[in-house]
């Protein structure tokens, strides 16, 4: 079965070895893109839209896990979900999570027999997807949500980090103290986070990834990899014909886009 693939791996020898091993295990597979770091993997994946993505977990910039999340969110609706295979030398906790959520992974150094099994599985999945002639997003997303919720990838940190009550945002020579309960939503902006209340906007020097464990997950919902919204500030969620969900807020005029990874939150009771 012919198919296309992307390999994201920061260590050049290992990238070459995986490509070589894939040539043997799956001769019809064409590697159409190679990325040396996470951000490049996202950019190349969205541009070339391969059938299979091999993502190293530890990469400079975005980790393979973060890259996969970004790809899953921004991947166009008309194309079927890509198959994602994680590559790692040794990440005990991540491996447990992958086993649990039935996500494919490859261990480094690549073992030919193990890779052959993975390839067989990928071919089956690709065949089903092409036969059904429709995107298999739901199954892929269900696996993703399970992975996102698993303790091994962030859940433990969330439990161990103390909650934030007041946000201290600098502006000029002043420090503004913003109670967390007044925040309508947080939005990631490069290495900063924008903090939006009903009547003001602040910037804090913290990444969303660092902020997230300090927020109460019951009160603050992540609706996109770059957006976290206070749940009782949401007035309503609207779904358009294409299935895209947007939120209308109390206290802010903006409409927020909900990514497909998080859209399942908004269902009637």
């Amino acid at each position, binding site marked *: 079965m012919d198919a296309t693939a992307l390999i994201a791996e*920061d*260590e*050049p*020898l*290992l990238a*070459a*070895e995986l490509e*070589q091993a894939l040539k043997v295990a799956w001769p019809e597979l064409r590697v159409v893109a190679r990325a*040396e*770091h996470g*951000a490049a993997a996202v950019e190349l994946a969205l541009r070339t839209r391969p059938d299979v993505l091999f993502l190293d977990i*530890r990469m*400079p*910039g975005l980790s393979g896990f973060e890259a996969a999340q970004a790809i899953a969110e921004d991947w166009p609706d008309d194309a079927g979900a890509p198959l994602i295979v994680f590559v790692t*030398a*040794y*990440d005990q906790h991540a491996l447990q999570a992958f086993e649990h959520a039935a996500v494919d992974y490859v261990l*480094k*150094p*690549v073992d030919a027999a193990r890779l052959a099994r993975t390839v067989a599985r990928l071919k089956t999945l690709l065949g089903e997807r092409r036969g059904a002639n429709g995107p298999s997003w739901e199954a892929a997303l269900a696996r993703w949500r399970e992975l996102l919720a698993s303790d091994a990838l962030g859940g433990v*940190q969330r439990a*161990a*980090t103390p909650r934030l009550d007041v946000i201290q945002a600098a502006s000029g020579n002043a420090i503004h103290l913003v109670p967390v309960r007044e925040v309508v939503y947080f939005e990631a902006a490069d290495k900063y986070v924008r903090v939006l209340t009903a009547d003001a906007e602040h910037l804090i020097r913290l*990444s969303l*990834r*660092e902020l997230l*464990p*300090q927020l109460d997950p019951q009160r603050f919902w992540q609706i996109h990899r770059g957006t976290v919204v206070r749940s009782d500030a949401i007035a309503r969620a609207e779904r358009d014909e294409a299935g895209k969900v947007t939120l209308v807020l109390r206290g802010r005029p903006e409409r927020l886009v909900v990514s497909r990874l998080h859209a399942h939150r908004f269902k009637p009771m």
Partner: protein
Amino acid sequence: MNPAPGALWRVLRHGVIIAGFSLMVALGLGLARGGEWLLQIVYAEAIGMSIWLSMELGRYLFRVDPETGWPSGWRSGALQVSAVVLGYVLGTAIGDLYCGCSSFDLWRHSPRSLASYLVLCIAVSLSISYFFLSRSKDQRRQREIATAQRDAAEARLKLLESQLEPHMLFNTLANLRALIGVDSVRAQAMLDQLIAFLRATLGASRVPFHALEAEFARVADYLALMQVRMGARLETRLELPPELASLPVPPFVLQPLVENAIKHGLEPHVGRGRIEVRAARDGDRVRLTVRDTGAGVVARDPNAPSEPDAASSRFGLAQVRTRLAAVYGAAASLELAPAGDAEGGSRAVVTLPA
């Protein structure tokens, strides 16, 4: 305070031991006075058990030091004296009840004989107390030794784990395997470096000092391994002036800093980077510098929750600080700070007396 099952066992064991002591006292007295065995046994056991119970109960009235099982300071003495007196009176009364006589009448016709019983009773109590006290001290000392041994073993294991981090090891082996296929000569060189690195890591913590040259050689092996892995992304520079080559330094004074710079500075950094390891004399001191052009100190704040290896990084730095303090006291220091120039990254500086 509820005694745990372990504590209950201990109390019962004490009771049995005291019953044994009392029996021996009774047999001694019976021998000396020729007969009245049963009577002696009843008195001795009644007094022994009464004193023991008074002490055990008394211990629960006071706050007990969990280490020794006794109240602290004068309370311990007061408890023992009052328990002996109370137990003696109580035990004698029980004995009297058994024989139908009154030992306290002895006050009238033979106070000496009663006094001799009391002295005997105090002597036996003191020796039993001493027996238990030295036994518990002994056990405590053994516990302390066991704990110290466990701590030392744990520290060694942690050091070894931080040096031979599985992720690094498996990635290196994966690279080696890949290299065998494409360039067997380079693969052999890499294997030699890995062997040297492992040999040094596993053996070095056993010597108190080695030459700075040896520390640099180990760093060079580690960096060579990393260079195979990171390829063109990693540029390295090592500078060791010949006059400092034989300076004795504690092992692992530089390597954890270099590993830190790679793991938290250059590996997560997108694009190319450089690491410089330098030794320089500065008056009567020697300065060892590890500088990288990577992600920078802020990004690798060990307290940041996003840092997956924060614990191992903190451990590496703490290990270097501990070693320096143990060997040089306040005369040596380690500072980690942003490099503070256009290239960014961070700089770790170890200052040693020359």
